[in-house]
C-alpha cells in the first residue's frame, strides 16, 4: 500500500451550464493534515460532496486506499473509512446525543456499538455529560463537537472537516483544533476546509487553494500564502 491515501484525478462538476469544479488533481498522504481553502463559491464544498459521494456523477475519479470510489454510495464510502462533517451541523434531531453517535457506531461496520464505545466517543469531544440530552439543548459549539464525534465514531482513515470553526470564539476554535490534532496523532488523515485562516495555518502541513473551481496552488502553507494569485483571490474579493 502506498502512503497516498487519497488521489483525486481531474475531478470536475457542472450544474447545468455552470462549471463549479474543473480538473482538480490532488493527492493526500496518510497521516497528513491538509488545508483546503478558497473564497466562497470556489468549489470547496462541491469537491467535498463529490468525494463523499453526495453527487452521484461527476467528471474524473477518486482513488481511496488504492481502490476507486466510483459507483460507491456515500454510506459505502463512510464504511470504507471516509468520514465528513457538514458545514452546518446536521444532528439527528429526534435522537439523543448518545444515540446520534450510536448511528455511525452501529452502521460504520468498525468495532462494536456498545454503550461504552459511544460514551468513549463522546468523552473524546467532551460531550459525555450531555449524552442523554437532545440536540436542540446543545450550544453551537457543542453541536460542532457532536458533528465531529459522529464522524470520528466511524474510525475513519480520512476525515473531511467542513468549516467547523465558523462563528466560534477564539477559545472554542482552540478546543476544536486540539481535538483534531489528537485525532491526527491517532493516525487519521484530515482535510480541513476552513475560512478561519488562523486555524488553517496553525493546523495544516500543506495548503491547497481553490478559486473558481480550479486549484491554483498546492504546497507548504507559507509558500502558498505568499503567492500573488492567492493573495489576489482573497484580498481582491
Amino acid at each position: 500500500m502506498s502512503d497516498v491515501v487519497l488521489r483525486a484525478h481531474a475531478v470536475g462538476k457542472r450544474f447545468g451550464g455552470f462549471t463549479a469544479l474543473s480538473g482538480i488533481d490532488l493527492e493526500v498522504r496518510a497521516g497528513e493534515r491538509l488545508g483546503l481553502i478558497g473564497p466562497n463559491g470556489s468549489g470547496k464544498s462541491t469537491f467535498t460532496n463529490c468525494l463523499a459521494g453526495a453527487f452521484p456523477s461527476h467528471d474524473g475519479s477518486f482513488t481511496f486506499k488504492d481502490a476507486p470510489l466510483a459507483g460507491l454510495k456515500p454510506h459505502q464510502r463512510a464504511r470504507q473509512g471516509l468520514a465528513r462533517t457538514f458545514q452546518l451541523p446536521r444532528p439527528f434531531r429526534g435522537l439523543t446525543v448518545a444515540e446520534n453517535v450510536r448511528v455511525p457506531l452501529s452502521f460504520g461496520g468498525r468495532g462494536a456499538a456498545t454503550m461504552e464505545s459511544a460514551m468513549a466517543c463522546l468523552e473524546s469531544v467532551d460531550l459525555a455529560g450531555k449524552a442523554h440530552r437532545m440536540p436542540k439543548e446543545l450550544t453551537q459549539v457543542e453541536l460542532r463537537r457532536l458533528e465531529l464525534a459522529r464522524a470520528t465514531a466511524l474510525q475513519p482513515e480520512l476525515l473531511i472537516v467542513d468549516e467547523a470553526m465558523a462563528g466560534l470564539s477564539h477559545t472554542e476554535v482552540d478546543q476544536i483544533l486540539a481535538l483534531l490534532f489528537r485525532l491526527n496523532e491517532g493516525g487519521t488523515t484530515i482535510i480541513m476546509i476552513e475560512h478561519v485562516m488562523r486555524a488553517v495555518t496553525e493546523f495544516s502541513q500543506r495548503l491547497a487553494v481553490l478559486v473558481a473551481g480550479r486549484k491554483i496552488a498546492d504546497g507548504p502553507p507559507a509558500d502558498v500564502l505568499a503567492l500573488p494569485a492567492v493573495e489576489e483571490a482573497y484580498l481582491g474579493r
Partner: protein
Amino acid sequence: MSDAIIPALPRPAPPRRLGHAGFWLAAAAAAAILILALRGMGSEYAYFAATFVLQYVVLATAWNILGGYAGYVNFGAAAFFAAGAYTTVAVGKAFGLGLLPCIGIAAMVGGALGLGTGILTLRLRGAYFAIATLCLSVVLQTFIVNWSYVGGSRGAYILRPRDVPFGFDSYGGYLCAVVLVLAAAAIAIARSIEVSRLGLGLAALRDDEAAAEAAGVPTLRLKLIATSISGAMMAVAGAPLPYLGSYIEPTSAFGLSYAVNAIAMPLIGGTASWAGPLIGAVLLSSLQQAATVTISSAANLLIVGVVLVVFVCVAPRGIIGLFRRRR
C-alpha cells in the same frame, strides 16, 4: 434482513421500558384477558367491535413503521390494505385456502408491493412520496376494478365456513382471535424494530437523510426494508376483511377512510413509539364504532378529521408525547 433486526443495545436513556420477557408476558396476558372478557360478554357484536378495533391496530402500527420511524408519509395505506383483502379473495378462490394461509400470502403480496413502491418512489422525498403513493392507490384500484376474477367492480362474495375452527363459539370469535394475534404480532414487530439497529437507522434517516448516509447508514436499503415490512403488515391487516363482511368491492376496500385512519391513528397516539399507534387506534376506532351506533350520522366522520387536526396542532408528539416530555 438478517443484519437488520439485531437485538438492541441496552438503552442509555433511563430504562423505563420493560424487558423482552416482561413485554411478552404482559402482551399475552392482555390478549388472554381480552378474549375471555369478550367470550364472557357472549355477544357477537362485542367480537365484531373488537375485531374492527384490532384491525386498525394492525394497520396503524404497520403505517407507523414507514411513516413514524422513517418519516415517509404513505397516503396509499388503503391500497395495501385492499391488496391484502383481495389476496384473500383471489387465493381463496383459486386454491380454496382458508383464512390463515391467506394471511401469509397476503403478507408476501403486501411485502412485494411495498418493495415495488419503494423502488419506484423512494428516491422521491416528502410530499412527492406521499402523492406517488396516492397515485399508486388509484392505479391499483383501476387494476382491481378491471380484474374480473376477483369480481371487478361488481365485488366478490366470501362465504364464511360453516364449521368453526378450534372450539370457538362462533366464526366471529375465531376471526377476532386471529386478528388479536395479528395485532400482538404487529406490535411485537414494531417494538423489535424500534429498539433494533434498523430502528436506529430509520430514525437517523428520518431526521436527515444525507447525514445518515454520511454516518454509514445504507438509507435506500433501510427504506426498502421499511416499505416492505410496512406493506406486508398493512396487507395482513386487510386480509381478514373479506371474512368480516362476506362481501368486498373496490370502492369501499380502497376507501379513503382507511388511508385517513392509518395516518390519523399513529399521529394522535404518537409516532415515536409502538405504543402510539396502539393508543391512537384503540381510541379513534372505538370512538368511531361507538359513534356509528349512537349518534349515527355523517357527523361521526367528522370525528376523525377534527381529532386529527386538533392533535397535530396542539399535541404534535401525540398522546405519548403529552406524557413523555422528551422526544
